[in-house]
């Protein structure tokens, strides 16, 4: 049985307070985090398998169609969910959400002056297979402006939410696209301290994943905290 999970890698994960991302100012804890030896409460977590899925949950180009096809560049994103020890994580739920091809979220609070696509919601789910593999079909999301600073624009991205085997392996992150010039000036992307860790948030174009006459393919792997060899002492 797993006795502990490795710590969050602080070279990889952003700090709570990151000046360039202004909303962190009042939402970042000031006290040091309290050490916690893992107990059954941390080594367990919600279990969701394929029974949590609805048909077409993994195909965002079809799961919200009302009267036609959604508009935009069709794409596939596929990859593996692994732990730090390199093991594929089977049967783990992935939830994604994103803007439409014009850079508009269907969210009620999004006021960006770009068109809503009546045939696109922008949300999907899938569960990894026995090797930890996943695959979504979607549309490439557009970039969109945000009020963090003058002329701020978020690079195109897809939000990912993952559980992994326990409550402490939970991860919410964003996948970016190769060659996007907005990455260089995005505070959220740059909040990741380590340059290689930033680069690992960028998917790779994959001709192998690309489907002829149909959709551009990308590969993106996700690594969650892994079981550690020795229990962590607080």
């Amino acid at each position, binding site marked *: 049985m797993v006795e502990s999970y490795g710590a969050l890698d602080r070279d990889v994960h952003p700090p709570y307070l990151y000046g360039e991302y202004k909303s962190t100012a009042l*939402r970042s804890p000031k006290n040091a*985090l309290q050490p916690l030896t893992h107990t059954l409460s941390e080594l367990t977590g919600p279990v969701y398998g394929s029974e949590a899925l609805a048909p077409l949950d993994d195909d965002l180009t079809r799961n919200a169609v009302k009267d036609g096809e959604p508009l935009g560049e069709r794409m596939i994103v596929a990859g593996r969910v692994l732990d730090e020890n390199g093991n594929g994580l089977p049967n783990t739920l992935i939830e994604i959400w994103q803007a439409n091809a014009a850079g508009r979220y269907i969210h009620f*609070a999004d006021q960006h002056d770009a068109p809503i696509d009546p045939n696109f919601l922008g949300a999907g789910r899938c569960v990894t297979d026995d090797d930890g593999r996943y695959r979504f079909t979607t549309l490439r999301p557009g970039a969109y402006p945000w009020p963090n600073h003058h002329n701020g624009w978020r690079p195109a991205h897809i939000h990912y*939410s993952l559980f992994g085997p326990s409550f402490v392996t939970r991860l919410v992150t964003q996948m970016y696209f190769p060659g996007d010039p907005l990455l260089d000036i995005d505070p959220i992307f740059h909040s990741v301290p380590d340059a290689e860790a930033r680069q690992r948030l960028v998917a790779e174009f994959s001709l192998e994943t690309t489907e002829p006459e149909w959709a551009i393919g990308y590969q993106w792997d996700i690594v969650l905290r892994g079981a550690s060899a020795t229990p962590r002492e607080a």
Partner: protein
Amino acid sequence: MAKQTASQTIGPYFSYGLTPEEYGRAGICGNVLAGADTKGEAIKIEGRVLDGEGNPVNDAMIEIWQANAGGRYNHPVDTSADIELDHTFSGFGRCATDPDGRFWFDTVKPGAVPGPGNTLQAPHISIILMARGMLLHTFTRLYFSDEESANASDTVLDSVEASRRPTLVAVRGDGPTYRFDIHLQGEDETVFFEA
């Protein structure tokens, strides 16, 4: 060793993906964990998420994870064969905060679960909090104000500076309702764990 994938903020627009009922789409779970057939004491947990100036955080998501009323987690790692699983109870729930920063859950009071060595932990609920403006989620725990003796011998609570311990204890009010506010920052900053 593979390197961990970095966390990024959940952002302001997660609800149609993660808590999507108001968008006409079923979510994987909601904030009602217990049904009429769930064993144990039905309780409500309610609170607010507040920032360092006491402003409501209206775009946070709270996730809770807990054992059933007998003290068993619905997860394969929990092999306590002497405590039954409750098949009506997953132990996991989610709630997005409303415009006033409020959240609530209908659940059952969890039983005590094993802690370090042969100890039992005081009944508690594990919490993950995410929001716009948080680049990484935080972990905290919710304990119960009417479990004074169990709380007094809990090793996790005991590890926390006494003056900050009350931030982890939900206060029982009228009926089976517990109040639990989460302060991201400020004088009453909630204790967050390096979990």
